[in-house]
């Protein structure tokens, strides 16, 4: 009986898809939801910040009288929504994801999986999917909250917003993967992630809104992935400055550089 298996096994393994991916994805999602810190930062923090500022700061509720119509009647928080979406992407990519991946390495999960028929690459793939899902929930909650609670008008150019969001996600997730590529421990990845996270937030307008950001900062921001994302999302939401071509190209370029680098440098044991 063993002899027959010996002959058949290699071809059979190659022919079928990897067994158990569905179970892996479902289990990892369940386990992911048990980590309150990750869930808070990935899902609650961006929307919470948006709603908190929108409801608590009177200036954000007042209309932007100096903006070109029809935006002159929209509340001030409107200009902050694209930044919040960029924040949601950046938070998952630079705080949640690298720590997860480095912890898998630290705990020996990647190495343990390499001894089974399930390649460790699929665990990372499953978590990319979970993070994309978290991102959609987080961004969705921000947008819905902004529209329903804060009376923010819907995007002028939703397709551009969507395109920039997709490219921002590929660029930032590639960056997150690179951050986690070599880290031996979760805490190392966390530290490195934070080192990139906080400057990124500054250039994407979390602390100084894009509308009042000095030109030199805007110029630097254009060449940074999260800065370009915030600018591109703003352009798509307001639709008054045309298509954000430079920002889209910058995000595509970061993706093309960072993704292969992250994959190549990633240590699987």
């Amino acid at each position, binding site marked *: 009986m063993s002899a027959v298996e010996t002959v058949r096994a290699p071809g059979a393994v190659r022919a079928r898809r990897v*067994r*158990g991916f569905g179970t892996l994805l479902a*289990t990892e999602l369940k*386990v992911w939801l048990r980590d309150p810190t990750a869930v808070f930062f990935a899902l609650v923090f961006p929307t919470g910040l948006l709603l908190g500022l929108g409801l608590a700061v009177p200036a954000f509720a007042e209309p932007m009288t100096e903006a070109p119509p029809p935006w002159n009647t929209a509340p001030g928080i409107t200009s902050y929504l694209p930044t919040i979406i960029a924040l949601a992407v950046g938070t998952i990519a630079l705080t949640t994801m690298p720590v997860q991946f480095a*912890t898998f390495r630290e705990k020996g999960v990647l190495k*343990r999986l*390499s*001894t089974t*028929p399930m390649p460790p690459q699929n665990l990372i793939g499953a978590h990319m999917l979970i993070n994309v899902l978290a991102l959609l929930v987080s961004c969705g909650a921000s947008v819905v909250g902004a529209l329903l609670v804060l009376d923010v008008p819907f995007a002028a150019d939703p397709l551009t917003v969507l395109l920039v969001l997709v490219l921002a996600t590929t660029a930032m997730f590639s960056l997150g993967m690179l951050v986690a590529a070599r880290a031996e421990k979760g805490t190392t990845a966390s530290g490195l992630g934070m080192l990139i996270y906080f400057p990124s937030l500054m250039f994407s307008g979390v602390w100084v809104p894009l509308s009042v950001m000095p030109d030199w900062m805007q110029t630097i921001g254009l060449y940074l992935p999260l800065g370009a994302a915030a600018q591109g999302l703003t352009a798509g939401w307001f639709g008054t400055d045309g298509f954000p071509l430079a920002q889209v190209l910058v995000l595509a370029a970061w993706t093309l550089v960072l993704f292969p680098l992250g994959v190549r440098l990633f240590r699987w044991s």
Partner: protein
Amino acid sequence: MTSPVVEVSHLRKTYPPSRTAVADVSFDVARGEIFGILGPNGAGKTTTVECLAGLRRADGGTVRLLGRDPQADPRSVREHVGIQLQEAALHDKITVGEALDVFGSFYAEQADPAELLDLLDLTAHRNQQFGKLSGGQKQRLSIALALVGRPQVAVLDELTTGLDPAARRATWDLVERVRDAGVTVLLVTHFMDEAERLCDRLVVIDGGRVVAQGTPSALIEGLEGHRGVRLRFTGDAARTRALEILTALARQDDAVAAVNPAGDEIEVSGTRTVLFAVVQALAAADVVPDDVRTVERTLEDVFVQVTGREYRAEENEEVTV
């Protein structure tokens, strides 16, 4: 099935820049054996099994596992080999039951999780999270995960390190049950007593080389002066007299290899008839010992003989060759 399940031949592995972890290791494992890879930490045991499992690329030699070449095609052995690695390898928040289900889903043939939990005394902890398990429970789960794909060969690496004596003995019983279920077991350990108790055959590895191999009893039988006797006497006079008689005896009788004072006792080693020779010589001279004990030889003595130094499990941590 008489062909070996595992064949390792002149395996060599060097880590950059120049640390030779495995210099020359060869052995065969037959189906249904508990086969030991024994040696101090840093001797090259884990590197050997990692090459065998296709987790590491060897620099030289050949490896065959179930007739396949895990170096050329690591995927080909994954379905049939269960590996329990030294480190904990699960997320703290996954439960015992979830871990078994998810690992089981990777394999074409799965063991019944309920049966495995029962075999490993984990049924009561099914819904407990990994991070909250005790060391022994984690270790047992780790073994369960190595068995969940119904492997033909299970590699168990240092599975009793950090366990208390009761948990160690329970784990030993378990390894025997696993073998009785038809799984060939490759046991990597630095514990001499563990290897002696469990292994049908073993190799002793030191500094990346096989320094001894065989069954534990044959290795111990093969020791020079493998039988020992300890004698105690009342008073210095009697002991001095006995020492003279026995030293003379060692020169005449091939059965007696060595005579050494050991504290207020005398230790005599030699062949199977050493006890007989000693007692006879002392009786003839009318010197009566207070107490006579036979000394048990262990694999530790084998190690001392083949390496010329004492066995310390933690030595060779950083071997640089």
